[in-house]
C-alpha cells in the first residue's frame, strides 16, 4: 500500500506538499549511518535552502524523483535496521568468553529453510522497488511535449553554456530564463541538449535530474518550475580543466517578466554613439571572431553571445559577478578569474581596455 500512495504522490504535484515531504525527508535522512552529517547539513550554513538540494524539488521531474527517492530510502532504511540488528546481536550475544576457552561451539553447516527465506524476501523487495522505479522512469522520460511548451537548445562548450530559443529567436549564455509553470495551465520548458566539444551534464538539482550533453548524441529533458526565483546548478560531467567553474543559473520568471525579458532579448544590440571607440577596438581585435553582438558585424559563435551582456548577473559562466571591475579584469587577464579558460588575454593597452569595457557596459 505504501508503495502505491508514494507513486501517486509522485505523479501529482503541488507546492504545498513540497514542504511536508521535505521535513519527512530530513527525518529519514537521519538514518544512523549519516546522522552526524545530516546534523551538519541542516546547520547554520543554510542547507537545505542552499539552492541545490535534491530534496527541495520545485518542478515535477525533481518532485517525482524526490518522492521515489524517499520511498527507496525508507525501504533500504528498514533493511538496514533489520540486518544491522542481526549483525549487532550476533556480535554481542555470541562473543567468546573466557570460560569457553578450548571448547568449540556446536558445528552448524546450514539450513535450507533459512536460505530459502532469505532468498525469497529480498526478491520480493526487488520486485516492489523495481515496479515503483519503472513508473517514475516512464513518467519523467516519456512525458509528451505540450504544444505551448517553451523550447530551448542548450549547447555545452568548454566551460560555458550556450542557450538558443529557436522559436523565439534568442541566443544567450550561462543564465537561462524560463517561465514559471502554473499547474492549471502548464508551460513547461523542453530542452534539447547538445555539445560542441566534450561531454557535459546539465544539472539543476531542484528542477530536474541531470542529463548529459554528448557530442553526436542529442539528448532531451524537461522541467516545469512551480515557483519563481533563481535556481543554481553546474556542469556535472567532467569536461576538462575548468569543469569546476562551469556554473549554471536558471531564472524562473513570472509570465509578464518572462515576456518582457523575451522582448528585450529579441532586440539587436543598443547602439551608443559614446561607445564607438570601444566598438572599434572590439571589431579590430580578434574579439569578434569568437563573440557575436546582434546587429553588428561581430558574429562569432565560439564564445558567448554578448548582445545583451549587461542583462546577465555573472561573467565567465558564473565565475565572477558582472561588475565593471570584474569585467575589466576578465578582459585584461582571464586566467586570474578562471585559469585555463579558452578566453585569451588580448594584451590590450589601458586605453583600449577602458574603451572596450565601456562598450560592453552599453550592451544592455
Amino acid at each position, binding site marked *: 500500500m505504501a508503495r502505491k500512495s508514494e507513486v501517486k504522490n509522485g505523479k501529482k504535484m503541488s507546492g504545498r506538499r513540497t514542504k511536508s515531504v521535505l521535513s519527512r525527508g530530513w527525518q529519514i535522512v537521519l538514518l544512523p*549511518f*549519516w546522522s552526524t*552529517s545530516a546534523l*551538519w*547539513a541542516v546547520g547554520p550554513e*543554510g*542547507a537545505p535552502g*542552499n539552492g541545490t*538540494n535534491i530534496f527541495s524539488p520545485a518542478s515535477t521531474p525533481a518532485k517525482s*524523483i524526490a518522492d*521515489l527517492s524517499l520511498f*527507496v530510502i525508507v525501504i*533500504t532504511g528498514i533493511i538496514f535496521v533489520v*540486518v*544491522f540488528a542481526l549483525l549487532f546481536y*550476533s*556480535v554481542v550475544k*555470541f*562473543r*567468546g*568468553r573466557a570460560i*569457553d576457552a578450548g*571448547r*568449540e*561451539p556446536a*558445528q*552448524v*553447516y*546450514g*539450513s535450507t529453510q*533459512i*536460505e530459502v527465506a*532469505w532468498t525469497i524476501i*529480498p526478491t520480493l523487495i*526487488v520486485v516492489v*522497488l*523495481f515496479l515503483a*522505479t*519503472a513508473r517514475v*522512469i516512464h513518467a519523467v*522520460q516519456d512525458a509528451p511535449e505540450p504544444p505551448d511548451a517553451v523550447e530551448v537548445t542548450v549547447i555545452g562548450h568548454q566551460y560555458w553554456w550556450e542557450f538558443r530559443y529557436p522559436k523565439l529567436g534568442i541566443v544567450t549564455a550561462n543564465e537561462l530564463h524560463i517561465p514559471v509553470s502554473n499547474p492549471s495551465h502548464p508551460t513547461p520548458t523542453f530542452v534539447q*541538449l547538445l555539445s560542441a566539444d566534450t*561531454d557535459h*551534464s546539465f*544539472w539543476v538539482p531542484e528542477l530536474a*535530474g*541531470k*542529463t*548529459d550533453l*554528448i*557530442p553526436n*548524441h542529442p539528448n532531451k529533458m524537461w522541467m516545469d518550475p512551480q515557483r519563481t526565483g533563481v535556481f543554481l546548478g553546474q556542469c*556535472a*560531467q*567532467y569536461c*576538462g*580543466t575548468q569543469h*569546476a567553474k562551469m556554473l549554471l543559473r536558471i531564472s524562473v520568471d513570472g509570465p509578464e517578466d518572462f515576456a518582457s525579458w523575451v522582448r528585450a532579448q529579441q532586440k539587436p544590440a543598443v547602439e551608443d554613439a559614446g561607445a564607438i571607440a570601444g566598438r572599434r577596438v572590439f571589431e579590430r581585435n580578434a574579439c569578434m571572431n569568437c563573440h557575436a553582438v546582434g546587429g553588428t558585424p561581430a558574429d562569432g559563435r565560439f564564445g558567448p553571445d554578448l548582445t545583451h551582456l549587461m542583462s546577465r548577473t555573472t561573467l565567465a559562466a558564473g565565475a565572477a559577478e558582472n561588475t565593471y571591475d570584474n569585467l575589466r579584469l576578465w578582459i585584461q587577464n582571464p586566467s586570474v578569474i578562471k*585559469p*585555463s579558460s579558452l578566453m585569451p588575454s588580448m594584451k590590450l593597452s589601458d586605453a583600449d581596455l577602458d574603451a572596450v569595457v565601456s562598450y560592453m557596459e552599453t550592451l544592455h
Partner: protein
Amino acid sequence: MSSNVITVSVGQTDAKPWVDELHQWLTTVDHKRLGILYILSALLFLVIGGVEALVIRVQLMHSHNNFVSPEVFNRMFTMHGTTMIFFVAMPVLFGFANYLIPLMIGARDMAFPRLNAFSFWLSFLGALLLYFSFLGGSGLYGAGNAPDVGWWSYAPLGARAFSPGHSSDYWTLSLLVSGFGSIGTAINIISTILCLRCPGMKLDRMPLFAWLNLVMAGMVLIAITPLSAAQIMLLIDRYLGGHFFDTQAGGSAVLWMHFFWIFGHPEVYVLIIPCFAFMSEIIPVFSRKPIFGYPVMVAATVCIGFVSMSVWAHHMFTIGMNSYANSFFTLTTMVVGVPTGIKLFNWIGTMWGGRIQFKTPMLFSIGFLFQFLIAGLTGIMMAASPFDWQLSLSYFVVAHFHYVIVGGILFAVFAAFYYWYPKMTGRMLSERLGKWHFWLFLIGFHLTFDVMHVPGILGMPRRIYTYEPGRGWDTLNFIISIGAFIQALAILVFVANLIISYFKGAEAGNDPWDAWTLEWSTSSPPAAYNFATVPRVASRRPLWDLKHPENPDSRYE
C-alpha cells in the same frame, strides 16, 4: 623464520649476498614470492595513491582554496583513481590469490609458474608506465604531464584534440599492459584450481577462497578483454587516424562509455569477490564454526558472476538512454543485490551461535560486514535510475564507491593481512598496533565517507577543483578532509606494524589461529615446495578432521 633463512644465506655466500637475494626475488617463479611481490608493489602504490588523495582533500578543505592549480588537481584525481583500482586493489588481491590458492588446494605451485612471473612483471611495468607520464607525458608539445582526463577518460576528452601530448598515451599503454598481465593471472588461477587440487579435494570440498577466486578469474577474462580492445581502438584513433571515438569526425562517445563500463562494472565484482573470499575464510575461524550454507555461498557467487555482467549501463543512467534501457538496467542492478545479500546473511549465520574471538582480523571483518551493508544499500538507491539522475556524478556516488572500495575491499584486505601475515613471514602482527590501526582507520573512514554523502545530496558535483562559498559545502568538506588525515595516520600505524613485526613479532608457528584449511598444516613461511608430502583430504576442513578425530567433518559429507 624467514629471518633465519636470510641469516643462513648470509652465512653461506660471501660475495654480495644482498645482490643474490635480490636476483632471486627478481627471477623467482615461486607463487609465494610472486604473491609477496604483488602485495609489496600494491602497498607502495597504496601510499602514492593515498598521497594523491590527500592533495585532493587539502585543496577541497574550504571554498576558493588555492593549494594546487586546477591542472594539478585534475591530474591528482585521475592518477588516484587509476592507481587505486589497477595498481593497488587488483595487485593486492592477485597477490593473496597467488600466495594462498596453491597452499589451500594442496598444490606445490601455480599451474604456469613462468606465466605467473610474466604476469606480475607486466602488471608492474604497467604501473611504471603510468607514473613515467610525470616525466614523459608532455612530450614535445609542452602539454601537461600526467593524464588529467579522469580514470574513465571519457571520449572525446581522451582524443588528441582535447588531450595533446603523451599523458593519455601512457595511461592507455599502462592499462593495456597491466590488462594483459591480469588476463595471464586469470588463466593461471583457473588452470591451477581446475587441474592441481590434491587427492580428495573435489570441487565441492574446495575452500570457498578457491571457489570465489575461480569465479573472479573467469570474470577477469570476460571483463578485461573489452577494456583492452577499447584501449587499442583509442590508440588507433590517436595515432593511425581512426575515428572510433572521434566525435568531430562522426565517431561515438557513447561507444567508449559502453566499452569502459562493460569492463568497469564487472571489475567492481572482480575486486569485491576476493574480499568475499577473505571473509569466508576468516569469519568461520574466529567464530569457531564452519561457514553457514557452503553450497549456497558457491551458488550465490556464480550467480553474482553472471548477473554482474548485465548491469554495466547503470553507470550511464544520465547519458540519455531510453526508458526501456533505464528500466532494464535498474532491474538487473537490483537483482544482483539478492545473491549479494544472501552472502551477507550467510556470514551472519556463521557468527550466529559461535564463540567470536575479537582478534584484529575479525575486527576488520566485522567492519567489512557493517560497511558493506551500507554500501550495498546506497547502491540500491542509485540502482533506482531516477534517484541516480540526481546522485550520479555527485559526491554521493563518490561516497558510495569509496564505501565499497575502502569500507569493503580495504577493510577485507586489512583483515587478510592480519590473518595471513603470520603464514607469510612466520611472525605475528602486533595486536596492540593492530587495534590502534583498526580504530583509527574506522573513525577516519566514517568521518570522511559518511559525511561525504551529504554534499552530494546538496548538489556538489565530483571532480571540481574548487567551489563557491555559501553553498553549504564548506563545513562538510572540512570534516571530510580531517577524516582523510586520520585514515592516513592509521595507514602509517599499519606500515609500522608490518615492519616492526617482521623483525620483532612473536613467532607464529604453523597454525596460530587454530584454523582448518591446508595452508595452516605447513610451516610458516612454507618451504619452496609447500608440502613435504602432498596432502590428502576427506572434507572441507581437513585440519578440523585432524584435530577432532572423534567427530570429523568427513562423517557428514
